[in-house]
């Protein structure tokens, strides 16, 4: 059997895995989700419009005093930027339209989270991010985005405070810088709350968000430097547990894979060593053996960490 035939056969066989999934109610749920997405867009638009209107009223003198100079009209923002979430507090944010490059100059405190998004374009467009002309990273753009989906990163508490740090975000197509109509670039910087601990070179925050819910730190474990794998058997816990996976060092050419009870379950199956991932869950009332392992060459300073989280109070 050649590889094409094997591939076809495997896909056909695997189709059975989801063959019995119910379709009843799926269209209704999709329409409800669509309404939520639309409400979120409208809310962001309305808030921005309100701010512009208020500025206009002030400028017109209706609130008393001499009319101040006419403010330059601000474009309505499309990407929703929350003033705070999960203990983070917004420091600043910016948004440009029609592909205009975005620049944010920030006094970056130690322990901050930087979120970037490129929306309104197909994945053939590439968004670039650089910090003080360094650490350039790229990602494909997307059609409907929320802040941080394209990329986000943290300025850890171990790093020095950076004054006047410039974040630059721009778009390319086929390697050439472009400013496509309809493109939206957005970025926001949040101050993180004090870390609970540091694991594998990563600040572990008291709260993380997954599927709109806040999850509080429960406990954590870390590998010895240079170990290929970290395996932990967690006893049964009375609540569902969220896993946060953290790894070090950044820039190594290796991937990390998660196994739960011996089975690779994470999707994406692997993520780059140096990155982190939040979202895998463990069933309540069951013991689980969790393994985080490096696929590829293991740097001598490699470290792996697993954080367990439980739903925060009030969630």
């Amino acid at each position, binding site marked *: 059997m050649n590889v094409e035939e094997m591939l076809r056969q495997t896909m056909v066989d695997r189709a059975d895995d989801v063959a019995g999934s119910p379709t009843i109610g799926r269209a209704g749920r999709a329409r409800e989700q669509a309404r939520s*997405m639309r409400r979120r867009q409208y809310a962001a638009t309305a808030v921005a419009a309100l701010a512009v209107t208020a500025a206009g009223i002030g400028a017109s003198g209706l609130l008393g005093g001499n009319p101040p100079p006419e403010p330059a009209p601000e474009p309505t923002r499309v990407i929703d930027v929350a003033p705070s979430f999960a203990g983070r507090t917004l420091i600043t944010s910016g948004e440009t339209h029609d592909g205009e490059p975005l620049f944010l100059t920030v006094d970056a405190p130690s322990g901050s989270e930087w979120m970037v998004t490129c929306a309104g374009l197909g*994945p053939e467009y590439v968004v670039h991010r650089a910090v003080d002309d360094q650490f350039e990273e790229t990602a*494909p753009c997307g059609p409907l985005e929320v802040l941080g989906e394209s*990329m986000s990163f943290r300025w850890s508490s171990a790093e020095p405070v950076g004054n006047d740090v410039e974040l630059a975000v721009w778009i390319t197509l086929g390697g050439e810088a472009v400013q496509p109509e309809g493109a939206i670039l957005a970025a926001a910087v949040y101050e993180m709350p004090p870390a609970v601990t540091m694991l594998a070179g990563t600040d572990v925050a008291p709260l993380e968000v997954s599927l709109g819910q806040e999850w509080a730190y429960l406990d954590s474990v870390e590998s010895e430097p240079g170990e290929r794998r970290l395996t932990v058997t967690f006893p049964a816990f009375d609540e569902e547990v969220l896993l946060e996976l953290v790894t070090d060092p950044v820039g190594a050419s290796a991937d990390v894979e998660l196994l739960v009870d011996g089975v690779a379950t994470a999707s994406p199956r692997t993520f780059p060593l140096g990155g982190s991932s939040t979202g895998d869950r463990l069933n309540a009332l069951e013991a689980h053996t969790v393994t985080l392992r490096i696929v590829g060459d293991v740097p001598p300073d490699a470290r792996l960490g697993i954080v367990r989280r439980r739903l925060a109070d009030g969630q």
Partner: protein
Amino acid sequence: MVRPTAIHAGATDRVAEFEDFVASRATRLLTTAYLLTHDHGRAEDLLQTSLAKLWLAWSRVDEPDAYVRKVMVTTYASWWRRKWRGEKPSDAVPETSASQPTRDPDMWSALARLPRGQRAVLVLRFYEDLTEAETARVLDCSVGTVKSQSAKGLAKLRIDAALVDEGRATR
């Protein structure tokens, strides 16, 4: 009062059309999502998000099948790019080893090791049976890109250790 009634009837028709489309296509689309993500819960989430985006555009979409495929692949790509702090938009719990299919795990795992762009091309070409031109339209790329991504993906499968060790991928 004719106008509101007419509008309401139109909206009802659109809902019915959408319901029919989902009923007839959801299983196939879910399979495509599963082949892309290799995870049932994540596939459910990918399909649901894609259908929501389809509904937002329903009144102006001529080919819903092609549109939703495009949204699905693009959304899938946007998940992939979250290299840092990637929140998984799935509430699925890990499957146990007992529920893991045992059919051809080597090809399945080899497919999972492909870069996402190549995997998307192979799923569209070899499961959805799209032509190279149709695949190019879904992915918003050239036919040449589809050809090269498909060739690279197949070449990687041929040399994947899991398949080579067993001497199964013959060409």
